[in-house]
């Protein structure tokens, strides 16, 4: 298959089109402008719609509308813009409207820095809006994964009738590298997806109360609201069993484990290779779904052997470390190797931290 040299953001945009996404609304913010710019060109070529909304809030509301009409729909932004979108995301989750969105994350809090960071971990995995909803959250570590995960995300969104988040740090979003793009769905397939039996889709169903479509982001009745919450909770629980994904790299005999996702995991993997070449027993656990978090990968480790865990992330204070600690428990100490502010995780930084752990372990 042909390799195309493209940015992570462009890979996300093209993969969305190939997955049958035919509606995108977004608002400019660095470093994700390549997604709306790409789709402003691309959508008209495939009979899709691109709208530059007047704000992030309006853009996600447009996606809520388009997705409620049965169309595969997407929005994207970067950290502060994603915060604004939380209203619409929560509505989609509450009304069980399938949609996909990408956060090409940058430094924070506030306006933060325009350079890459992983400061949105808790927002992405714990509380992307009000009301305690959950989402599948994928964290790509390369442009290839960004494309593949975006493509799949639409299937998951449709399967679950729920938003899916692509949490992509600004390095992976702006990095260019070769990508083998997923297959383009034909116009017939796209039409089939759109017209698939979606009795809930607001496209006009006549004047019968029993069969009308009704997109309801809330309930008047406390009884039905609790029932909806329980149904959603059962769905979230099924993800923990079936959809949690992690890469476990050289963990079988490892005495030190690095935990990292996105670009930090990629840098950490290089460090693992360097230390392995020196005979040091080190491995990597990379959450691919940061939600649900792969707790099992940490729980099943043999702690008679694993002496320490190193959490590597581009966030200060450490954020994912909270989940890593939950997975590890008191069976091993969890150390951190951190940077933030738009500084990109350095190989030497991780190497030094890992070597120090080996000294402590001895």
């Amino acid at each position, binding site marked *: 298959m042909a390799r195309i*040299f493209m940015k992570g953001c462009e890979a996300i945009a093209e993969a969305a089109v190939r997955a049958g996404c035919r509606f995108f609304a977004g608002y400019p913010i660095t470093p994700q402008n390549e997604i709306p710019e790409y789709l402003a060109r691309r959508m008209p070529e495939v009979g899709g719609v691109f709208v530059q909304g007047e704000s992030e809030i309006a853009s996600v509301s447009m996606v809520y509308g388009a997705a409620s009409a049965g169309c595969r729909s997407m929005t994207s932004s970067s950290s502060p813009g994603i915060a604004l979108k939380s209203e619409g995301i929560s509505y989609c989750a509450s009304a069980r409207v399938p949609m996909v969105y990408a956060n090409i994350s940058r430094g924070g809090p506030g306006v933060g820095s*325009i350079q890459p960071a992983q400061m949105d971990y808790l927002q992405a995995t714990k509380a992307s809006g009000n009301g305690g909803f959950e989402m599948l959250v994928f964290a790509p570590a390369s442009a290839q994964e960004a494309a593949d995960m975006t493509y799949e995300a639409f299937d998951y969104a449709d399967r679950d009738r729920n938003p899916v988040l692509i949490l992509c740090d600004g390095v992976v979003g*702006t*990095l*260019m*590298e070769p990508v083998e793009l997923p297959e383009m769905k034909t116009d017939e397939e796209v039409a089939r997806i759109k017209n698939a039996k979606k009795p809930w889709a607001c496209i006009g169903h006549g004047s019968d109360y029993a069969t009308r479509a009704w997109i309801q982001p809330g309930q008047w009745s406390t009884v039905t609201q609790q029932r909806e919450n329980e149904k959603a909770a059962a769905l979230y629980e099924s993800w923990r069993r079936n959809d949690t994904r992690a890469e476990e790299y050289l963990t079988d005999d490892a005495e030190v484990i690095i935990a990292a996702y996105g670009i930090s995991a990629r840098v950490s993997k290089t460090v693992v290779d360097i230390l392995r070449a020196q005979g040091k027993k080190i491995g990597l656990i990379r959450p691919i779904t940061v939600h649900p978090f792969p707790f099992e990968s940490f729980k099943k480790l043999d702690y008679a052997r694993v002496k320490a865990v190193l959490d590597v992330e581009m966030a200060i204070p450490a954020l994912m470390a909270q989940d890593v600690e939950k997975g590890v428990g008191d069976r091993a100490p969890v150390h951190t190797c951190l940077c933030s502010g738009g500084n*990109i995780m350095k*190989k*030497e930084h991780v190497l030094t931290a890992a070597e120090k752990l080996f000294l402590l372990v001895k």
Partner: protein
Amino acid sequence: METNLLVAGFGGQGVMMLGKLLSHAACDSAQKNVTFFPSYGAEQRGGTANCYVVISDDAIGVPVGDVMDDLIVMNGPSLNKFIGALKPGGRLFVNSSIVREEIKRNDVSVIKAPVTELSLKLGNPKVLNVIMLGVYIGRTNIVDEAVVEEVIVRQLGKKAELIPLNREAFHAGLEIGKGR
């Protein structure tokens, strides 16, 4: 085999394009992995611009490294800012038309090319980056020069009349790089 390259200059010198052309060519070469990472200031014009290119036979773990095998500097401030990142024995490519600063390292090999002057001689100041790409390829042969030339024609050939100019610029650079 992995090569880390940093290209640095100011906005408008085609620094990003130089890195992208090289990366595209590496992508077109079977079996090579390549990453390109741009780093801009917030300004739209006149700020600093630099990009990191990694070309490797294996998967690339670190697209933005600290230690560079090769460094291309298109202006003086970039030399001072990044010379320390070049590994001992690394290769330094300098736009000698405008870089007047002293090179305070004697453990690196220096390839000087007056690409600003040469571009003016060729009649278009914009091709200085293509000349420098030629210099880099001529010296390192990191990607086959024919593949690079194809990429230049493909990426910069939207205006057909510019194709001969860009070819000429690339070849002028190759000659310098090969030490002729």
